[in-house]
């Protein structure tokens, strides 16, 4: 209760501010419309108009809710207007990219922990690669892949893999290095091979770090998948919904796609957190 009440208060405040902002931003259009209809410009008439415009500058929360409900439940999920369908397109690219990025991140981390040459040569460039706004490459990756005949899921997955590999790499390197000298000495006194040290000591003790970075990585790969849908003018996916909404001034459509993306991100992070809890409990690492 101590934590729910403040969160609910802040959420309520946000919704109230949103309504006020929607009224203010949609007001000029409402005034013009009523003037043209030569209707009386009373406050209630203006208010009603600002809350129910077809192409509002800022749609009111209930309009977005209606748009969301219509997109999620109002269509058959195979329909091209269904947000479930578009969400699935984005989700599949996200998951594919996340899998590739995680595998690459873990493999590189294992190499970095075991080879000093790799640590000194790969790590600085991995860090530098993240100061590059990699999304700038998104359109090029897609066009290049299309020119050699690869379209659809894979190009988007590569972009989201690129965004998700770095958090995994950093977290896993840190996690694999957590066993201190005493634990490593203990393993050596048991005459453990390098493989045994890795599987029995390093990997298990890296798990908490790995899961913390997986949560960051899955959110990042969703962003990658959405942005990967923007430049090539893709016709499917949440990014394509955003783009077509922006071309045709369908603000409600943009906001509905945005909320679907947000919900999807939250859902993915929750799922990872759930797997994390089960895994750590089984390993007896849960605090």
């Amino acid at each position, binding site marked *: 209760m101590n934590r729910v009440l*403040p969160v609910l208060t802040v959420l309520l405040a946000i919704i109230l501010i949103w309504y006020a902002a929607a009224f203010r931003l949609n007001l000029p259009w409402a005034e013009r419309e009523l003037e043209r209809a030569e209707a009386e410009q009373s406050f209630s008439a203006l208010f009603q108009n600002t809350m129910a415009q077809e192409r509002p500058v800022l749609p009111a929360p209930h309009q977005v809710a209606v748009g969301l409900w219509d997109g999620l439940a109002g269509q058959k999920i195979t329909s091209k207007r269904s947000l479930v369908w578009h969400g699935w397109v984005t989700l599949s690219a996200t998951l594919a990219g996340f899998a590739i990025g995680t595998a690459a991140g873990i493999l590189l981390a294992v190499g970095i922990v075991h080879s000093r040459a790799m640590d000194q040569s790969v790590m600085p460039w991995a860090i530098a690669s993240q100061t*590059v706004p990699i999304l700038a490459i998104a*359109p*090029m990756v897609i066009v290049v892949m299309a020119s050699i005949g690869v379209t659809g899921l894979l190009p988007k997955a590569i972009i989201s893999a690129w965004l998700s590999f770095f958090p995994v790499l950093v977290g896993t390197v840190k996690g694999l290095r957590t066993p201190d000298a005493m634990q490593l000495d203990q393993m050596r006194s048991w005459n453990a091979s390098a493989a045994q040290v890795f599987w029995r000591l390093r990997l298990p003790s890296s798990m908490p770090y790995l899961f913390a970075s997986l949560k960051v990585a899955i959110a990042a790969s969703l962003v990658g998948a959405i942005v990967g849908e923007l430049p090539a003018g893709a016709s499917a996916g949440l990014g394509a919904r955003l783009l077509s909404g922006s071309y045709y001034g369908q603000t409600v459509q943009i906001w509905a796609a945005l909320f679907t993306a*947000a919900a999807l991100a939250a859902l993915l992070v929750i799922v990872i957190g759930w797997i994390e809890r089960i895994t750590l409990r089984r390993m007896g690492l849960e605090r």
Partner: protein
Amino acid sequence: MTTALPIIAVWLGSWGLNAWLSRFDTRLTRVLVALIFGASLIVLWEMTVRAYDVPAVILPAPSQIAASFAENARTLWIDFVQTILKGALSGWLIGAAAAICTAIAIDRSPFLQRGLLPIGNFVAALPIVGIAPILVMWFGFDWQSKAAVVVVMVFFPILVNTIAGLAATDALQRDLIATWSAGYWQSLWKLRLPAALPFIFNGLKISTTLALIGAIVAEFFGSPTRGMGFRISTAVGQLDMPLVWAEIVVAALAGTAFYGIVALIEARLTFWHPSQRK
């Protein structure tokens, strides 16, 4: 097979050199190893493209990219000013200032802190770049809308980090400064803000790349006839890949420099922190 031999030779050679150098583990060899690795990647790239006649549309050679860079220097500079200086940098400064001020205001109310922190954490994980089309509609096609996207994108990471940082002092330190009868502002300025600096800089560093991403992605939703996002999408349309890669080089250099400058300021301001010890 014969074309692949020199490529493999260069790879093995540079790797062997690195493996040998990395055993010394001094400051100089660390820099050398990183540089040799980067240089060998570029050489391998150039050799592969030439040996297998990879069309420039798929992957231009580094030399072609460098030529395009020199040829289009003027255009690249105009795009750099439009996207990085006007869009990303101004948005980053406004967003950071707003986030730090908001964090200080929220810090005075434990109720708001408990309410806003979970929501802030949540929003920081969302694909905020999606609001770009909305903000482009509101603020027009020019750099103002890109700056607005950047402001929103960098706001929450910096906010969450600053709030965490302001809570970083322990009771003992706060009691000590209270016994010196310091007021709220004195304790904020002399104790809590300095103690929060490592956290604030963490947020600032994370958001440098976010700022560039925001500014470039927002240009896909409409821009004047300059800017890096605009240039990339039109050059892709004309299959002018060397120019696209030249833009990417600019973005990479700008991103690295941006991050480096923030990290440098951090090192100067938080020299007392354990993570800065050599």
